[in-house]
C-alpha cells in the first residue's frame, strides 16, 4: 500500500553476461572507493519475481530493487517519513503547493553506460498509467494531472502538477521512486502487456544503483555484487563484496541456518526462538523493527446472505447501505460488548511476550494507524476494559440472556452463535482464535472457528461472505485510512460506514501540512474505535536476527535490511575472504 524504499531494475545485459563465472574475481571496487570485503547472506522465504519497479509487488522485489537502483528520493523514518535527495538533487513546491519541480543528478548512468535522465523518470509514469501494464501502483497517479505526470522540462528537470495540494509527504512518496530504462523498454519490439516476462524484469535486471545482480538462480539465490559502473555518490559505494539472498521457504530451515552460521540475517523471528538465540548464540544480535503488523477481529456489519442475493440479482455496484444489517454485528452495541469480553492483554502475554526475559513484543491496538506514527496515533485513547461481567450486562440490555440456562445467550429463540474464519498456517492467529473463543464462551457466546486456505479466506473477505474474521494487516507508514474505512473501498471488508469518519478522512487527506493534519487523526481513531467495526487486538514487533560481525547496519521499520551499501565488516572479523 505504501512505497517504502526505492528500487528499479534493468536489463540490457543478458543473464549470461551478468553471471559471475566460477573462478573469476569479483569486480574491484570503484577507484577511490572503500575496500570491499566479506559477504552478507540473507535468508528470505520467497524469491523475487518482478524487478521492474512498475510491476513489482513483494518485499523480496523491493529489497533487490532498492539495492540495485537509485530512487529519486530516499526515505527515513522518525515518527514520520521524511525524504532526502538521492537521484533527485533537489525539488521545490510551487507557492500553491500543487506542483513540484524536481532536479535530477546528471552524473548517474545505467549499467550499460546510458545516462539516467528525465525521460526515464517520465517513462516510468507512462508505464504505470498504461492499463496494458496492469501496474499495482496506479494510485500514485490519481492526484496528478494527466499531461504533467511529469512534464519534462530538460534532460534533468521535470515538473509534476497535481489536481490539488494534499499531504506533502504523501505527494513526495509518489515522486520518490526508482526509474525504469526508457532506452531499453520504449521500442516497438517490447510488448507492454507482457512486460513481466521481459528479461529486464524476469531474468537480467539493469542496475543504476550501487549493486548489480551478478547471479539469479530462480527460487534458489540472488547474488548482488558492487556495480562497477556506478557513478553516483561515493558515499553509496558498497563496503561489502557481496550480498546473497538465499531462498529458504521453510522457517525451521532458515532458523537452523542462522544458528549454524550458513546465513547471517533473518527476519520475522518468533518470540520463543528469539529467547533461544539470545541464550545460546552470543554472535547473533536481535533487533526490533517497530509496529508494522496488526491482528484484529473483523465484524461484518452487513448480512452476507442478503449481500450475495443482491449482488446476484441487482445491477452491479450494490452498496452496503442497500443490504440488510448483520443480525449480530450490524448492532454497534453488540460489537462493543464483545470487545469488552476479549482479553487483549492475555493475548499479548501468551503470544507476544518472552517467557524467559519477559520482554514484550506486542502492544494493544486501537486502530489501523500504527503507533510508530507518533502524534498521529492516539496515545490517549481509553481502551474498552476487559470486563466479562460488564459485557454480559450490556448484552442482556440488548435482549441477549441465557433464558434456558444452557450456558449460551439467546434472544427470541436464537442462540448467540457465529463462526469466525481465519487463514490456516498461522500458528499465532490459530492460538489467538482459541483464546478469543474461550473469552466469548465465558460470557455465553458460542463462537466456532473455521480455518481456511489463504486464497479462500481472502476471497470470502472480499465477497463479504463471513460473520467474523480474524485477520492481519500490514500498516502503511503514510496515513491512508480511506483504504480501510471509505464506504466503497475494496479493502473495507466490514462494510463499515460513518459519515463523520468520511468527513475526517477527507479533511485529513486534503491538508498539505502534516502538522496541521495531525490532530484530525486521533479524533478519527476515537470515532472508529467507539464504533468497533474491528475488535482491535495487538500490534506486533518484527524481530530481526543478524550476525554481530556486521557494522553500520540499517534495520528499521522501513526494512529489515536497508542501505546495504553502508553495511560493513571490520577487517579482523571477516568470514568470507572471497
Amino acid at each position, binding site marked *: 500500500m505504501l512505497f517504502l524504499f526505492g528500487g528499479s531494475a534493468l536489463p540490457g545485459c543478458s543473464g549470461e553476461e551478468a553471471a559471475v563465472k566460477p*573462478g573469476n574475481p569479483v569486480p574491484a571496487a570503484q577507484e577511490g572507493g572503500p575496500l570491499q570485503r566479506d559477504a552478507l547472506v540473507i535468508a528470505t522465504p520467497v524469491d523475487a519475481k518482478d524487478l521492474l519497479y512498475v510491476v513489482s509487488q513483494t518485499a523480496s522485489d523491493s529489497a533487490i530493487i532498492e539495492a540495485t537502483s537509485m530512487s529519486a528520493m530516499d526515505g527515513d523514518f522518525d515518527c514520520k517519513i521524511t525524504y532526502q535527495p538521492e537521484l533527485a538533487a533537489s525539488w521545490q513546491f510551487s507557492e500553491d503547493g500543487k506542483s513540484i519541480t524536481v532536479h535530477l543528478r546528471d552524473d548517474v548512468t545505467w549499467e550499460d553506460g546510458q545516462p539516467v535522465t528525465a525521460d526515464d523518470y517520465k517513462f516510468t509514469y507512462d508505464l504505470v498509467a498504461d492499463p496494458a501494464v496492469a501496474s499495482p501502483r496506479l494510485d500514485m497517479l490519481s492526484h496528478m494531472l494527466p499531461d504533467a505526470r511529469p512534464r519534462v522540462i530538460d534532460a534533468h528537470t521535470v515538473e509534476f502538477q497535481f489536481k490539488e495540494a494534499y499531504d506533502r509527504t504523501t505527494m513526495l512518496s509518489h515522486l520518490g521512486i526508482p526509474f525504469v530504462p526508457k532506452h531499453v523498454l520504449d521500442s516497438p519490439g517490447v510488448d507492454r502487456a507482457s512486460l513481466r516476462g521481459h528479461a529486464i524484469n524476469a531474468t537480467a535486471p539493469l542496475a543504476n544503483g550501487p549493486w548489480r545482480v551478478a547471479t539469479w538462480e530462480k527460487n534458489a539465490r540472488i547474488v548482488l555484487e558492487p556495480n562497477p559502473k556506478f557513478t553516483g555518490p561515493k558515499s553509496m559505494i558498497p563496503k561489502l563484496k557481496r550480498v546473497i539472498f538465499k531462498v*529458504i521457504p521453510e522457517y525451521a*530451515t532458515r532458523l537452523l541456518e542462522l544458528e549454524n552460521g550458513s546465513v547471517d540475517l533473518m527476519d520475522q523471528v518468533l518470540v520463543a526462538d528469539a529467547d533461544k538465540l539470545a541464550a545460546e548464540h552470543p554472535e547473533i544480535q536481535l533487533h526490533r523493527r517497530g509496529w508494522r503488523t496488526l491482528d484484529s477481529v473483523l465484524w461484518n456489519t452487513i448480512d452476507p446472505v442478503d449481500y450475495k442475493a443482491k449482488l446476484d440479482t441487482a445491477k452491479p455496484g450494490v452498496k452496503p447501505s442497500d443490504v440488510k444489517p448483520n443480525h449480530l454485528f450490524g448492532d454497534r452495541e453488540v460489537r462493543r460488548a464483545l470487545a469488552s469480553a476479549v482479553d487483549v492483554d492475555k493475548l499479548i502475554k501468551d503470544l507476544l511476550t518472552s517467557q524467559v526475559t519477559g520482554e514484550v513484543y506486542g502492544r494493544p491496538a486501537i486502530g489501523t494507524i500504527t503507533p510508530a506514527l507518533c502524534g498521529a496515533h492516539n496515545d490517549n485513547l481509553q481502551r474498552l476494559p476487559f470486563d466479562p461481567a460488564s459485557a454480559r450486562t450490556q448484552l442482556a440490555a440488548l435482549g441477549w440472556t441465557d433464558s434456558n440456562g444452557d450456558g449460551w445467550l439467546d434472544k427470541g429463540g436464537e442462540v448467540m452463535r457465529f463462526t469466525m474464519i481465519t487463514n490456516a498456517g498461522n500458528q499465532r492467529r490459530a492460538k489467538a482464535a482459541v483464546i478469543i473463543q474461550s473469552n466469548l464462551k465465558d460470557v455465553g457466546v458460542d463462537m466456532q472457528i473455521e480455518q481456511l486456505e489463504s486464497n479462500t479466506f481472502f476471497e470470502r473477505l472480499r465477497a463479504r461472505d463471513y460473520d467474523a474474521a480474524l485477520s492481519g494487516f500490514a500498516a502503511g507508514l503514510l496515513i491512508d485510512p480511506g483504504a480501510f474505512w471509505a464506504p466503497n473501498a475494496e479493502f473495507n471488508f466490514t462494510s463499515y460506514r460513518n459519515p463523520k469518519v468520511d468527513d475526517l478522512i477527507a479533511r485529513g487527506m486534503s491538508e498539505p501540512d502534516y502538522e496541521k493534519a495531525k490532530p484530525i487523526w486521533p479524533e478519527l481513531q476515537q470515532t472508529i474505535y467507539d464504533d468497533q467495526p474491528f475488535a482491535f487486538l495487538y500490534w506486533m514487533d518484527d524481530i530481526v536476527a543478524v550476525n554481530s560481525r556486521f557494522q553500520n547496519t540499517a534495520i528499521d521499520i522501513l526494512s529489515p535490511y536497508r542501505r546495504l551499501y553502508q553495511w560493513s565488516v571490520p577487517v579482523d572479523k571477516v568470514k568470507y575472504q572471497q
Partner: protein
Amino acid sequence: MIGYFIRKLLLAVPLLWGVLTLTFLLLELAPGDASDAFINPDMSPDVVASVRLKWGLDRPAHERYFIDLKNMASGDFGRSITLERPVAEVIAETLPNTLQLAAVSLFVSQFFGLCVGIAQSIRQYSRLDSALAIGTLFFYSMPAFWLALMLQLVFCLYWNVLPSSGMVDAVMYDYMTPTQQLLDRCKHLVLPGVAMGLAGAAGDARFMRSAMLEVIRQDYIRTARAKGLPEWKVIGKHALRNALLPAITLLGLNLPLLFSGSVLVEYIFGWPGMGRLIINAIMTEDAPVIMGCFFVYTLLVVVGNLLSDLVYSVVDPRIRFS
C-alpha cells in the same frame, strides 16, 4: 516389442486427458482465479477486468477447457499468467532439478531396500532380521517432513557436516573448481535424497525380504547349493535375479509417490524444483503452470513405467512383449 511400447504410449493419451480434465475441474472449484494476484487497494477494478480479458478468464469454463485441451494437444503449454513467461520455459528450469532429486532418492530407496531385504532374508528370524524389521517399520511409518527436519537437526546443526538447503553453496560455489562444484552439488543432494528415499527403502526392504524368501526356498537354489556354489553366488546370481522382478514392479509404482513426495521435501530443503513451482502456481492459481506441471508429471510416470517394463525383459530374458 516396439509395437507394445507404441500401444502403451497411445494408452497414455486418455490417461493424460483424464488428469488434465480433473485438474481443470479442481481449479474451477477453487475460489478466485489468477487475476487475484493483481488485486491490491491501489489497483483499479478496470485493470483487473482487463487482466481477466487478456487471459480469457472472463470466458465460460467450457470454452477455456477446450482451448486448453487444444493447446496442450498441439504441445503449447501457454504462458504463465503471473510470470508472463512460456510455461515450457519455466518447467524446463525446474524439471532437471526435480529429476536429479528423484534419481538420488530412487537410488537410496532401491539400494538400501535391496540390501536390507536381502540381509533379512538370508538371516531369517535372527536378531539382525528383527532389528532390521523394527528399523524399516520405524522409517516406513515416519512422515517425510519429520524425517527431513530430524536429519537437518542432526547433520546440519549438531554435527554441521552437511548443507541443509539449496542445490549449491550459496556463498562459495562461484569460487570452486569444477570438481569441487560437482562434490558440492552431491553434498547438497544427500539429505533431501535420503529424506525422500528412506521411507521408500523401508517399504522396498519388506517387499524384497518376502520376495527373496520365496525364491530361496525353490528347488533350483537347493540345487545350486548342492553342487557346491559359494553362498554369495547362490544369493547374488541365482536368487537375487529372480527376486528382482517384483521389486521392479514396485519401482514403477513408486514413481508417482516420488514426485508427490518431492513437493514437501523441496519446500523444507529449499530445493528449486517442480514441487515448489507447483505450490507457488497453486497459491496464485496460475492455471497454465499447474496444468503444464501435471501434464509433465503424468508423462514422467508413463515413461517410468515403460522403462520398468523394459528392465523386466533385461532381468528376465524369458519375458517378451507382444
